[in-house]
């Protein structure tokens, strides 16, 4: 065993950075699934749209992904209400949305994937940016820009989501919708509007998470599927409908993965992470921050 303090320190920092990316992926699931009860299995497809649009923006128009992600967040917020209205009219209004909604989003996932294949081809795409290959040294700890930038963006994004949900009237109605739709009606708010806004935020975060993914690694149209399990795991571990819980759970999973990779071996990482999830659910079924 070749474990040193340097290795441990690097593993913890790498885990926190990785956790930041997981939080970016999971926050949209937390809002859609945790707060709105919408099983948006197509969240990875939204990510892939974001990733490929960032690729297109950089390679066709020379737009830096940092700018693209801001534009995409705006686009997500703008088109989200229409998407939600479509979902509401087709599925939610008719009831039994859990099973039909699942099938609906699976369909969306496949359509988006095929659309991306037909538009961009099937090759792996990555962004070639000089600032991504930089590595910052903090004593013995090295921090690659490729992981640091997604972490910083993810924390800003989660912070904004938190601030919106807790410090605005619409945000509070979204939190209220997650608990009791009838109560929201009684205070004079429109639950459909709240859901529509929340779904838009989920779409926007998905698009941004896609941009972050293509900063980290090459992507192909179907690669997003690999993250759906982890995103739901983070969401459940964090307490289903809690932004703070999502960020905390993402960090815990990230650090657990990197420490396991350093101390035991990387192939044990999923077992340790999901073991942690099972243990948490056994002793605290509502998740870390669940009520």
């Amino acid at each position, binding site marked *: 065993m*070749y*474990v*040193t303090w340097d*290795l441990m320190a*690097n*593993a913890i920092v*790498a*885990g926190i*950075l*990785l956790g930041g*990316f997981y939080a970016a992926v999971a926050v949209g699931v937390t809002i859609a699934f945790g707060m709105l009860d919408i099983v948006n299995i197509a969240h990875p497809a939204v990510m892939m749209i974001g990733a490929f649009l960032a690729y297109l923006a950089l390679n066709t128009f020379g737009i830096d992904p940092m700018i693209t992600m801001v534009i995409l967040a705006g686009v997500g917020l703008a088109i989200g209400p229409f998407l939600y209205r479509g979902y509401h009219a087709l599925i939610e209004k008719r009831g039994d949305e859990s099973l039909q909604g699942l099938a609906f989003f699976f369909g969306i996932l496949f359509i988006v*994937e*095929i659309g991306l*294949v037909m538009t*961009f*081809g*099937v*090759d*792996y*795409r*990555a962004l*070639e940016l000089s600032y991504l*290959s930089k*590595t910052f040294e903090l004593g013995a700890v*090295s921090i*690659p820009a*490729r*992981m640091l930038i997604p972490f910083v963006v993810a924390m800003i994004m989660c912070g904004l989501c938190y601030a919106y949900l807790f410090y605005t009237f619409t945000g509070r109605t979204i939190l209220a919708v997650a608990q009791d739709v009838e109560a929201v009606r009684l205070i004079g708010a429109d639950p459909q509007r709240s859901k529509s806004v929340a779904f838009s935020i989920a779409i926007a975060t998905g698009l941004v998470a896609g941009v972050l993914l293509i900063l*980290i*690694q*090459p*992507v*192909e*149209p*179907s*690669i997003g599927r*690999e*993250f759906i399990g*982890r995103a739901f795991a983070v969401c459940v571990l964090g307490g289903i409908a809690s932004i703070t819980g999502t960020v905390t759970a993402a960090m815990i999973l*990230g650090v657990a*993965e*990197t420490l396991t*990779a*350093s101390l035991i*071996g*990387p*192939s044990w*990482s*999923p077992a340790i992470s999901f073991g942690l999830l099972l243990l948490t659910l056994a002793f605290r079924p509502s998740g870390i921050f669940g009520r």
Partner: protein
Amino acid sequence: MSKNDFTINRREALAGIATAALTAGSIVPASAQTQQPIRIGMGMAMTGGLAALGKSALLGMQIWKDDLNARGGLLGRKVEFVTYDDQSSPAVVPGIYSKLIDIDKVDLVVSGYATNQIAAAMPTIMQKKRLFMTLFGLAANDQFKYDRYFQMQPNGPDARMEFSRGYIETAMAMNPKPKTIALVGADAEFPNIALDGARENAKKAGLKIVYDKMYPPNTIDFGTIVRSIKATEAELVFVASYPPDSAGMVRAAREVGLKSRMFGGGMIGLQSAALKTQLGPLLNGVVGYDLYVPEPTLKFPGIEEFLKKYQAEAAKQGVDPLGFYIAPFAYAEMQVLEQAIVAVGSLDEAKLAQHIHKASFDTVAGTIKFQERGEWAEPRVLLVQYQGVTGNDVEQFKQTGRQVILHPPKYKSGDIKAPFGD
């Protein structure tokens, strides 16, 4: 001559032209008109994770078909493909081959890409006793031992050992000889097999294995893994990985400042233009297995013409613009089939299989002879090292000297530059 007469004459002339055109149609050889085309069926990954190579392979095959039909076809018949997208999912493959054989009633079937798809098709193919030309199957017939199976990746009879043989032999030729090796790879089929062989080759060479771990396929952070390897101070690092991991490992090795003497080995993805151009100069010093690179020691008749056609069409279709990895072997696979059919003079699959077992075939991928399990009798897995890569331009990879062949000695085109970190 009246105007009406002239009009009549013009009509007559038009009628004459039409008659001539019809007559010309009727003098096309009767065989091409009356005989049905030869239909070759296959499932191929056109969407999903395997699609990048699946579409590249299909383009290679289509170029063969167009070349052949322009030459008049096969046995006087045109050739057509019946293709279905297997969506990179082995689960749909048995259904595709049942449909191709029982409903579409194709004359011949070939496999899609790659091992899992081939293995999934095998029970159907064997039950129907069909000839099966396959593309990039890793030891897929070792268990079935089907005598009508032929495989086009040049792994040779012992594929497990081939993906690391060149790496270990090249390493042990360095002075001073290395003593330690780290083995790392994705917890998936190909890396498992490649690492298994690497373990055995390393032990035979007397190397001490100081790190031997696998990582889950959807790993994102490779820095932690590379740091653990760096802490072992391994002189050699053998990596067996899939495309996104290959990119992740190379980037992480640079970010962490890995200083091993050799790094790479069994990395899938580096053979494609997408990763070559994305990684660019980060590739310098990395060694990897490959199957074809444009080095002067590897000139086969027809390969350059084929690549020219491929590269022109690939740009339009949005598939791998270089086409070094799978496309020449897909074309060569069809050349084997073509040469066998011409030699046998029919589509009798039993006779074709017998002939393919006995004969040698000259193709754009070199001269090929198959052994009893349908693998190449002589392995030709190359170990290449990236040297002198500057920037991210794809054109440089068409030049010699960028992917220098280190092994096997027969095709060696340059010397290793070590250590990797420099």
